């Protein structure tokens, strides 16, 4: 197999395995806290940041980070208006940002094609970017391990949490910050549209099968890595787009889990929540 001999593929493989593990573990918390919508929103809304960075010749990671920060600020601003529901506010901000990104990306000056920004380019990413992204993914995993107890209390019993030494709004804010970091780290490899698959599919699969919280998190991390591995191998053997293969592998693993354990995913039931609602914004 080519993957064993090519330095380029080995580098990409290492990157996607680390990224898959971090996104998988993070995804379990996102689903338990019902933040899947936030994950999708943040990933899409950073597009103008990516395009502007590419126009300015700045590192794409920097553009992604800028895009996330501006989006978060705009959402915070939009939800201040009590007449606008937080989900509507998020929807308006995200589609505006995405539309702006598309308009910018179609201008002839953009050196990087919009398809690369939307769908990622695992094999064409510079080594320095890959290293940074890998480092960010490792940092996200470490933060999740350190914050495990606080996250568990914030999800399980937010009413009593303060008397147990945990402030749920702060914990949720920290989780959303980790989400932003993970999305920034993953966007170059997987692209704007497909990051979401790696955040949600492995976690949803693990929550169907895993009986304990620890099992769910470890399984999701493993499935995330496995999705990356399978997707990349399929991409190199069949000569198809890497990010698409990774996303399809993640969803295929979820389908297997759904067949193996056909019942409602644990903790994923109930209404979805917007990112701002989690911060205590009025509904």
């Amino acid at each position, binding site marked *: 197999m080519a993957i064993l001999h090519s330095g380029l593929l080995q580098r990409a493989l290492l990157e996607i395995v680390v990224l898959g593990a971090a996104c998988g573990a993070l995804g379990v918390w996102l689903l338990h806290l019902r933040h899947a919508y936030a994950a999708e929103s943040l990933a899409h809304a950073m597009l103008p940041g990516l395009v502007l960075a590419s126009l300015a010749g700045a590192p794409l990671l920097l553009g992604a980070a800028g895009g996330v920060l501006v989006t978060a600020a705009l959402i915070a601003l939009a939800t201040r208006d009590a007449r606008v529901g937080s989900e509507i506010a998020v929807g308006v901000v995200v589609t505006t940002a995405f539309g702006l990104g598309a308009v910018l990306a179609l201008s002839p000056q953009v050196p990087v094609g919009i398809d690369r920004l939307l769908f990622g380019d695992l094999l064409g990413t510079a080594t320095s970017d890959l290293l940074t992204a890998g480092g960010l993914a490792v940092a996200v995993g470490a933060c999740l391990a350190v*914050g495990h107890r606080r996250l568990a209390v914030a999800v*399980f019993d937010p009413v*009593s949490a*303060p*008397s147990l030494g945990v402030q749920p709004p702060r914990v949720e804010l920290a989780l959303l910050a980790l989400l932003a970091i993970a999305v920034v780290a993953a966007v170059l490899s997987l692209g704007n549209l497909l990051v979401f698959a790696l955040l949600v599919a492995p976690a949803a699969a693990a929550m169907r099968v895993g009986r304990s919280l620890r099992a769910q998190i470890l399984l999701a991390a493993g499935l995330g890595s496995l999705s990356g591995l399978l997707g990349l191998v399929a991409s190199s053997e069949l000569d198809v787009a890497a990010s698409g293969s990774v996303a399809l592998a993640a969803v295929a693993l979820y389908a297997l889990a759904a067949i193996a354990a056909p019942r409602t995913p644990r903790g994923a039931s109930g209404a979805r929540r917007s990112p701002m609602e989690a911060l205590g914004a009025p509904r």
Partner: protein
Amino acid sequence: MTAVTADRTFSASAGERRPVDAHVVVAGLAASYGAGPPALRGVGFEARAGQAIAVLGPNGGGKTTLFRALLGELAAAAGEIAIGGAVAYVPQTERSRLDFPVSALDVALMGAYARTPWYRRVAAADRALARASLARVGLAEHERKRFGTLSGGQRQRVLIARALVQDAGVLLLDEPFAGVDQTSERAIMGILDELRAEGRVLLIATHDVDQARRWDRVLCLRGEQVAYGPPSQTLTNAVLEATYGAEIVMLDCGHRAVAIQHHPH
């Protein structure tokens, strides 16, 4: 002047975990959410070690506000609170996420989180305490079971065990008998009596007037304090009408009175 004091009268590492002098003294307390008008005012009472106080009142009457003020989560707009012993909150079990994959032991261990540094695992002594607390509430064999699969009464006992792991001298219980079968109700009663005998202070928010007769004192709240005293003086028709207004339903000429509108949400 506002003062909230919490003397920890017993250490977390002590082998013998008994609160020495748990007490709650509240004087002229008013509390509000944000800048709004006080949700609760004119509250003053004194609960000594070993006393159980029923907190009665309609929805929005201020029971939750009082608890949050005692927990230090809500700054008092006026008045003073002095508390001896750590304060623990025992929520209604349906308020927690029943689909979250944690075991009874995991939940009891949460009581030790506040004193566990972020870079450490939960101490072996605390794990032992969590097991002992579950055994104390009669759930030793259930420690590995998922919290969500236990019965309402068993879940309530797990949450009481968590308060014991918190080393609470003062327990604030929110409707501990709501959605609990009779066997569990008796078990919980027995546990609460034991906790009283150890000198802990219990505040029990309830809608059940009949149930309130069992406790040492009754605190009636309706935006402000309506009455405080032994059941014989507070559970009178006049006081209950002042507390609940038209909501109260009198049965058997006042001997069995049950306030309607359960489960405040």
